[in-house]
């Protein structure tokens, strides 16, 4: 396996590193924020981040510095930073490790971001199930506050920044930035219509930046080692730096792997993750979390960067790579993901709320050997009427498992339906809407 220098996982890979404040400082922690507060202006920091080419690691891949730059310059009232730690995309489990093993790395990144955008308050919106992560973060904040790194007049610089942990309560949609803000305001996590964007009308209607855990964790390293260093890693000019890829499914060694962007799926799956479980042939993989369309063995040499995966017809998304071996039933796999989306649809937009229910019903009918050939047309038609017709990107996400499996493995659907017809199991009366 080629050795790459880990950046975000580096500290935690050292023997005995427990992620305490003392551990983090021994590893050089909190030097970047000292430098930022003492020597750089907020505009300088934003400039460095823009130059580094850092793009959001939550899923959308929007350039971080550009996002910060959208905040109104002359606004005098409060501004907010929200750390999106609502890691809920099936296939993704990197933020959990970054939070539980090296919480101060995230906190330092947040301090840097707060300074750059002029925010005095920041919230870490962490998914409710991460109870351990929330406790670890709260303890880390307490330690950093006691040391004078969080709170009033940090390092005697005159800058005051406070950070709080806010636990979500089990809603996937709260990872969507505007739904996250609604939830943080104590409401149902329903996405807001954009524009206006959070940059001008965010938390409490104030200018707000929402950044993912991994994005923020990169900041101390960019400040310490320079924008040019970061921009030279990975697949420049558009996909710079490393990514923590989460590999799950039928591989020998599932887990998190931090590699430069631009290596191939073949290298990630066969070298880092040890190859296929039982050395069976690979049948399919999802390249970037449940929202990303499925890819096939033909795509193994696609590079793991934003553009290459998009060219292959999918997306790099949250970095969750799920691998399936030969023999996996793709209709069943699509149904499982569809059930997830059906369960998690927030209900705000009719196409998604009603459509996800219909899609699940039809998919269950096909898997339960009661499918009809016209179901395939109905599925496609429904998907087309959901994608792009909702307030947030959830609608696009929920159709991707069905559309991509229909594209690559349509015959499996056809075989299943034909077998049902041949066995004369087909029910001609309308199927009830209850499920």
């Amino acid at each position, binding site marked *: 396996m080629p050795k790459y220098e880990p950046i975000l996982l580096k500290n*935690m*890979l*050292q*023997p*005995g*590193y427990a992620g305490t404040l003392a551990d983090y400082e021994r590893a050089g922690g909190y030097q970047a924020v000292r430098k930022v507060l003492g020597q750089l202006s907020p505009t300088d920091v934003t400039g460095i981040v823009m130059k580094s080419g850092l793009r959001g690691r939550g899923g959308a891949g929007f350039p971080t510095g550009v996002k910060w730059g959208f905040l109104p310059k002359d606004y005098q009232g409060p501004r907010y930073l929200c750390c999106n730690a609502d*890691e*809920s995309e*099936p*296939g*993704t*489990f990197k*933020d*959990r*490790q970054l939070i*539980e*093993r090296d919480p101060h790395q995230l906190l330092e990144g947040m301090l840097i971001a707060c300074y750059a955008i002029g925010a005095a*308050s920041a919230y870490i919106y962490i*998914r*409710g*199930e*991460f*109870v*351990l992560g929330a406790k*670890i973060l709260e303890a880390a904040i307490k330690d950093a506050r006691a040391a004078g790194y969080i709170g009033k007049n940090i390092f005697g610089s005159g800058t005051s920044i406070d950070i709080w942990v*806010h*636990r*979500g*309560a*089990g*809603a*996937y949609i709260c990872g969507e930035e505007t739904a996250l803000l609604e*939830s*943080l*305001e*104590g*409401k*149902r996590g329903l996405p807001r219509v954009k524009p206006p964007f959070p940059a001008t009308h965010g938390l*409490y209607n104030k200018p707000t930046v929402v950044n993912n855990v991994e994005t923020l964790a990169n900041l101390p390293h960019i400040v310490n080692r320079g924008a040019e260093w970061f921009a030279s890693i990975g697949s420049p000019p558009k996909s710079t730096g490393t990514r923590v890829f*989460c*590999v*799950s*499914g*039928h591989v020998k*060694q*599932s*887990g*998190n792997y931090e590699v430069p962007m631009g290596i191939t799926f073949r290298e990630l799956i066969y070298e880092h993750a040890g190859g296929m479980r039982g050395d069976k042939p690979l049948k399919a993989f999802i390249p970037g979390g*449940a929202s990303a369309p499925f890819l096939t063995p033909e795509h193994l040499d696609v590079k793991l960067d934003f553009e290459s995966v998009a060219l292959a017809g999918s997306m790099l998304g949250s970095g*969750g790579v*799920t691998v*399936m071996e030969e023999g996996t039933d793709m209709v069943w*796999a699509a149904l*499982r*993901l569809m*059930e*997830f989306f059906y*369960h*998690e649809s*927030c209900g705000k937009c009719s196409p998604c709320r009603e459509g996800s229910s219909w899609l699940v019903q039809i998919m269950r009918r096909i898997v339960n050997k009661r499918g009809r050939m016209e179901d395939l047309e109905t599925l496609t038609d429904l998907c087309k009427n959901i994608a792009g017709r909702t307030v947030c990107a959830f609608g696009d996400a929920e159709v991707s498992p069905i559309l991509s499996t229909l594209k690559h493995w349509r015959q499996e659907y056809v075989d299943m339906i034909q077998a049902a017809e041949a066995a004369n199991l087909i029910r001609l009366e309308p199927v009830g809407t209850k499920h």
Partner: protein
Amino acid sequence: MLKEKYQAEIDEILSRYPVKRSALLPLLYLAQREEGYVTEAAMQEIAGILKLTPPQVYETATFYTMLNLKPVGRFHLQVCKSLMCALVGSDTVIGWIGTKLGIKPGQTTPDKLFTLSIVECLAACGTGPMMQVNDDYYERLTEEKLDRILADLRQTGTSSLKTGPFMWPEPAKPGV
């Protein structure tokens, strides 16, 4: 009453936010910690604390799956059934639990010790099959591990097999 018992904690929670309503989820968690689930009385009290109407509290409480609106057993076993866990055998785990405890998903054992729920992704896809029991994650479940976990929970209320802080790959051991 939450206010009588937790006034200091409630004040601390309220101090984190410039707008009171933001404290709603933390206060609902407080209510759930107290009774095991969120009671109607607690929702009304919280509405009073935050100057909201009871329906405003109720509409939020009903949106989030981690807030129980009815009692659950002492140990809430939540098994992830999403695709990533399903690929590595979560359906089998659900079957084992059902057989061992004699309950179906959504049910509680007659002694009120265990409730079994099937849930969607818990962000432990690389270490599936997994389940969450109350606040703790249990990962890479096998039948043998599950037997030990259930026995431990019955005897001591917790189990050393719980996982975290999560790390993969495991760091090298000192001196190796």
